[in-house]
């Protein structure tokens, strides 16, 4: 058991990372040792990254203990870089988090200064001067490279800034120079933000936090109304909306709502979130209230503006889309299904249900159905209800390959009065494999008039004993 992280007091007492716990206890008997929980650390860092999206949408994670914020074009919103940094650090301090930060023109330099330096905002031309007195570890190098450099006396970054590059590259590899260039801002370093940036978003900062659901929905509608002109200008409607709720204690809730057709009306957008809030009701703890609400549109599509006419034929598509959106916002994307026919003779593959993702699908079902050959559609006899998985029955047949005389299904005996069949359906070898057994389907009617669809899998006299199954129920 070794120490993996230390707080300020422990550092003062002289503990070191990687030290054994027993040794640490020997140094200071009443030291508090907590087991490391990497998953919790990660969750905290991601929560902080969410929280940091109040400053910029581009937030990237850096290893286990750092965050990169790309504040290009955002700093002026908070009155400049210095005040942004002060605001960030002050808020984190009040959340009980000890953080160090630096703003510079390159990610590498910010990384170095935040960890090893003292300056907070570094102008682009100061890079070399700030970097020079820092230790080699500030360049994000592997430990053995740092040790090798230290052995030849290169202990500070300043030692290699002015040194000839070719011998350095030859001896220590190209990574050293790449890291140096990145820190100096000579080499570009792409950051990969955690989340894609929404094309549009509107935000409302509140001086008095809100808690009530109606307040949240009212503000959402207001934000949606602010998005509307911009969406109209682009000729687009949102297919996915995201509502970010920043709680006063730093927790951020992210609620998304999808739509089945491009959406632009603020009232309906708020209506979607009304259903979503109902669905996530348990998880959404308002606590002391939310201070920032942000509505963004991560996904949008072309929106057809339609003119109302006087013909009197009701427009079905739009209310249907509204209905589908409400249901899916509340009960999840997989709650409405459309029947889809496909070219297969195996009953369970011939007609399946597909989740309704788009109201336009109602039209495409029509086209798909017309693409299926007619002889498949007028299939002779098909039940109105089909069991997801055929249920085994005990059947007794008069002659081996004939229809059953009686069968026992779900513990009750049915005597068969009439039977039609067999209809032989062979398995699809390209799906089921070549060894799959054929099925002989019988439509049977018992003495009370119930009509069932039974099948026998395999043949008598074959390698395995045939089995009987109940596959469907007729009207």
């Amino acid at each position: 058991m070794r120490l993996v992280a230390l707080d300020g007091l422990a550092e003062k007492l002289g503990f070191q990372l990687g030290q054994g716990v027993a040794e640490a206890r020997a140094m200071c008997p009443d030291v508090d040792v907590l087991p490391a929980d990497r998953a919790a650390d990660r969750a905290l860092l991601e929560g902080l990254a969410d929280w940091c999206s109040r400053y910029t949408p581009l937030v990237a994670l850096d290893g286990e203990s750092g965050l990169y914020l790309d504040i290009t074009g955002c700093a002026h919103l908070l009155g400049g870089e210095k005040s942004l940094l002060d605001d960030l650090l002050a808020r984190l301090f009040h959340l009980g988090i000890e953080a160090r930060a630096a703003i510079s023109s390159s990610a590498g330099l910010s990384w170095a200064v935040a960890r090893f330096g003292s300056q907070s905002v570094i102008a682009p031309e100061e890079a070399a001067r700030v970097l020079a007195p820092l230790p080699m570890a500030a360049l994000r190098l592997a430990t053995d490279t740092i040790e090798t450099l230290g052995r030849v006396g290169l202990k500070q970054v300043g030692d290699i800034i002015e040194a000839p590059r070719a011998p350095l590259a030859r001896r220590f590899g190209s990574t050293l120079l790449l890291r140096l260039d990145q820190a100096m801002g000579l080499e570009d370093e792409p950051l990969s933000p955690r989340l894609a940036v929404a094309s549009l978003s509107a935000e409302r900062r509140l001086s008095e936090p809100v808690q009530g659901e109606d307040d949240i929905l009212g503000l959402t509608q207001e934000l949606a109304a602010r998005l509307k002109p911009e969406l109209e200008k682009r000729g687009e409607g949102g297919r996915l909306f995201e509502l970010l709720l920043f709680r006063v204690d730093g927790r951020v809730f992210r609620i998304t709502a999808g739509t089945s057709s491009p959406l632009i009306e603020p009232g309906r957008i708020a209506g979607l979130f009304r259903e979503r809030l109902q669905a996530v009701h348990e998880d959404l703890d308002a606590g002391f209230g939310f201070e920032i609400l942000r509505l963004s549109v991560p996904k949008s599509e072309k929106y057809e503006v339609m003119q109302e006419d006087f013909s009197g034929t009701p427009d079905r598509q739009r209310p249907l889309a509204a209905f589908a959106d409400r249901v899916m916002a509340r009960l999840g994307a997989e709650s409405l299904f459309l029947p889809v026919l496909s070219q297969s003779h195996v009953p369970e593959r011939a007609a399946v249900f597909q989740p309704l993702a788009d109201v336009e699908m109602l039209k495409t079902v029509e086209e798909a159905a017309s693409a299926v050959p007619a002889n498949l559609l007028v299939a002779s006899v098909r039940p109105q209800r089909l069991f997801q998985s055929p249920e085994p029955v005990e059947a007794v047949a008069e002659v081996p390959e004939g229809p059953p005389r009686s069968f026992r299904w779900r513990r009750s005996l049915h005597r068969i009065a009439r039977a039609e069949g067999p209809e032989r359906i062979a398995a699809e070898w390209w799906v089921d494999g070549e060894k799959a057994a054929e099925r002989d389907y019988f439509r049977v009617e018992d003495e009370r008039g119930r009509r069932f669809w039974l099948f026998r899998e395999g043949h008598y006299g074959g390698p395995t004993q045939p089995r009987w199954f109940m596959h469907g129920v007729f009207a």
Partner: protein
Amino acid sequence: MAENAVQRETVLSLRETIARIENRRLPGVVKAVKAADPAGFRRKEEGSQTSGRKVLPLGIPELDDILEGGLPLEGMTEIRNSETRDAGAAAGFATALSALCQQARRQTGDVGAPVLWISQSLASTEAGLPYGLGLKAYGLDIRSLILSLPRTVKDALWIAETALSVPVFCAVILEIRGNPASLALSESRRLHVRARAGRIPLLLLRQSGHEEASSAFFRLHIEPAPARERPLPDGSMLCGSIGHPVFHVIAEKSRSPAPVGLFLEWNPHDRRFYPVEPLPAAAAADPEPAHSIARLSASSGRPGGADTLGHLLAFPRAS
């Protein structure tokens, strides 16, 4: 005298309210009195009063009598079957009714109004999922069928309510298994009122449930019945074949009950019901027990083997 008149007026207005709640046409006497209102104004024309309810005539006089003119196009109708293995028949009857609604809509020029089938997942796992090809062969236009499989009864009710507030569906089928406590009288009243307000026929398909008081206009008990044989082109019947489905429809809640019930055949090709005579075999079919073997001790805690109530005396409580 004056007091008498006031009382009479109160009674009349109460009667009228009750009649309105029950969707019943006012009895002739009451109406005659109302028409000769001393205040001198007439409420509505006689004609509009009688044709207040929109119905879809099913073409069979006996059935239309039971349904007071036809399938209500605004409001709830309950369809019930008593055993899970009869669920196919009840679902088939409901499908036939929604196919008729679709057809009626199409005749008014409204093509493609969707049918919503809400099947609580317990119901659809017990009795099977609706099968697209089978429903298509049955006469339903599945291009405009939307299926929903909510997990709980509460979700199913919510979806139904939401659907009834959207004026796009030509029929909504709500399939529930048994008699859940979350669909009691007040919930059914709520659904019924929604369906009337939304002008959508709601078919409550109660799978293997008991009779229960509800706000539906009518409750029909559906049982399967032996089918006719398939007709041959020369008019004779193909011996031993199974033709179109036949239902035994018993009206359980209706103002003109027919205790014997009707035997109806659904013809998917013509998309209409035909009355049929019950087969002698079906009429004579004795209600034999499902378990043909002699019953041994009923297994406890499992369905199927439970004895009727009242056979055993309860043991005194041990504690």
